[in-house]
């Protein structure tokens, strides 16, 4: 009467389906993580060459210096990633970085309480800058490129006002802790980056506004039709960008133990952050990618200069080399054109 076979069959089918869906899932995860993985691989290879050629070898000092230099750009690149995911752009990240550096050089001083309040003020300023950007983009309905271009000028003016000449005194112990190594030779900045990814980025990405940011970047109209909180997602993207840029500014204050309203520095960090985001596998059209890839992208960009140094190449060649590497690494992405079936797909 009751045939046991169908249920068995269906169970076997379910298992098979489970396995194939698992494989599909794995393949999907791998293909969506291809950018960060390529950047990570590139970084590991480059860093291995760098350490191998370095006169001091694999010492805690070398690792620490590399981590500190990379972490600055990595943080600014993380900041840039989130607006880019919403298919926006934040051209003011570099200036927020400089502004918070200047504020840090004034406030992060004194005892534990003073330093703590100073750090809070610096991070708060970053949030404020981000909120202004977000408000202009969401409430003001301005194009992100031009709105953040203008606010960048405002932030730079504030930085100049805070620190007309380079200088400043900051809490030595705090600065040394932030730029030093933990016992075992692990750089504090690496731990800081890991902590931000685990406690900041990953929870954000799986939260409603984080997923909404991806949805907005991939198709704003579809996101709107599905009731995704578009305005909140965009606003928080810029707020978080300001926050991450402020952490970078704080770290710069610790590294240099001073502040400087340096427009060239701010501009170059803004542009390098875009490059790092792209090298890390995030699409400038929005919707795909992530901050982890940007961290590796930033480390790749920073290691290029170090490689030239250990190979004793003339530093004059560094900008040219950097440009060629950048173009080649984004040019590799064009190989996908060979697989395109209809030329219509080329056009947006």
């Amino acid at each position, binding site marked *: 009467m009751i045939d046991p076979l169908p249920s068995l069959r269906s169970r076997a089918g379910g298992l098979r389906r489970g396995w194939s869906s698992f494989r599909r899932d794995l393949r999907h995860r791998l293909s969506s993580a291809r950018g960060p993985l390529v950047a990570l691989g590139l970084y590991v290879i480059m860093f291995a060459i760098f350490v191998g050629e370095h006169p001091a070898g694999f010492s805690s000092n070398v690792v620490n210096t590399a981590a500190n230099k990379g972490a600055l750009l990595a943080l600014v690149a993380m900041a840039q990633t989130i607006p880019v995911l919403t298919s926006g752009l934040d051209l003011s990240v570099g200036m927020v970085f400089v502004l918070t550096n200047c504020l840090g050089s004034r406030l992060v001083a004194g005892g534990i309480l003073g330093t703590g309040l100073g750090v809070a003020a610096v991070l708060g300023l970053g949030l404020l800058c981000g909120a202004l950007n977000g408000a202009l983009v969401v409430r003001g309905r301005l*194009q992100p490129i031009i709105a953040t271009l203008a606010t960048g000028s405002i932030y730079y003016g504030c930085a100049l*006002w805070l620190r007309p000449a380079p200088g400043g005194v900051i809490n030595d112990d705090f600065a040394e802790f932030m730029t030093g190594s933990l016992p075992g030779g692990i750089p504090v900045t690496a731990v800081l980056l890991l902590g931000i990814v685990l406690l900041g980025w990953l929870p954000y990405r799986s939260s409603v506004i984080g997923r909404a940011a991806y949805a907005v970047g991939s198709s704003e109209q579809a996101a709107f039709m599905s009731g995704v909180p578009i305005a909140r997602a965009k606003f928080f993207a810029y707020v978080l960008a300001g926050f991450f840029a402020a952490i970078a500014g704080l770290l710069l204050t610790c590294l240099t133990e001073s502040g400087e309203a340096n427009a060239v520095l701010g501009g170059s960090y803004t542009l390098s952050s875009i490059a790092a985001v792209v090298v890390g596998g995030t699409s400038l059209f929005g919707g795909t990618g992530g901050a982890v890839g940007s961290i590796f992208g930033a480390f790749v960009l920073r290691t290029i200069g170090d490689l030239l140094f250990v190979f004793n190449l003339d530093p004059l060649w560094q900008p040219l080399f950097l440009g060629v590497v950048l173009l080649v690494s*984004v040019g590799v992405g064009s190989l996908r054109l060979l697989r395109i079936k209809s030329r219509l797909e080329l056009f947006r």
Partner: protein
Amino acid sequence: MATTFLKRLDRPVLAAGGAIVLLLVAGGLYSSSFVSPAYLLQQLQVAAFLGVVATGLMLVILLGHIDLSVPWVITMGGMMSVAAGGWTRPFSWLAIPFAVLCGLGMGLFNGFGVAYLRIPSMIFTLGVNAIAQGLMIVHTSGFAPQDHATATMQLLAVGRSIFGIPNAVWVWAAVGVLTVVLLNRTAFGRRVYAIGNNERAVFLSRANCNLVVVGCFAAAGALSGLAGALLAGYSTKAYQAMGDPYLLPAIAAVVLGGTNILGGRGRYLGTVIGVVVITLLQSMLSIVQMPEAGRQVTYGLVIVGMLLTYGRGDRNGG
């Protein structure tokens, strides 16, 4: 007659024009020298350099792209023109064409990457900027070139040969007239707008999209090179990073003039007015001796304020 004329002036043009009047009135109240013909002609001369750069950038922005290689292509134009002036001593008039040619080359490369390799212009032109910078730093060993600008370059940049109007303004006017004709009277120009609106549709109508994109980037590069040669003539020398202060003001000028940063919409008259607004603003802020900090903040606030009054997107997003 008057109404058709007013209709042709769209809101951004009127608003930016109003901003110029406001700036001049405020300046005139501060000091009468702000409204003297000598000062205004001087400002037009300075505006001409930005105007030439903004013209090229506008072509690219109309496509929905952006050209971030402007700073170092300008510097390349300046350095190559003074260098060519030195090499080709008897034919030193070749200096300017050589600078334009170098800029054209970089622009063609930009266009190739964006159109044929389909790399987003923002990142490709950023890389090209780094390459132009690298080439120039290798060429000069990191120092300012010793060569001086040729007589022709100086004449073109600072001379006032006809009616006392600076020659640089004539150059800008020539570039402007050519651009207006190109945009409004040729199939190429109409395709520029069409691509900015919907590139797929242009492709499906069997127009050669890639050629138009390459053409616009090439023009932008050539104009940046020309601006570099003019700037070198203006300061009699080329120097490192001489183009850096031109990228962001040029973008701001194009957008303040009502060109949509996403492409497809914008008129050249708007860009002209945007350039004049930016130049006047910068000049007045530096003359009233406000500290640099206040100047930067005011500059940013004015741009945000102007955009909020007329540069806002549609309410329905998308």
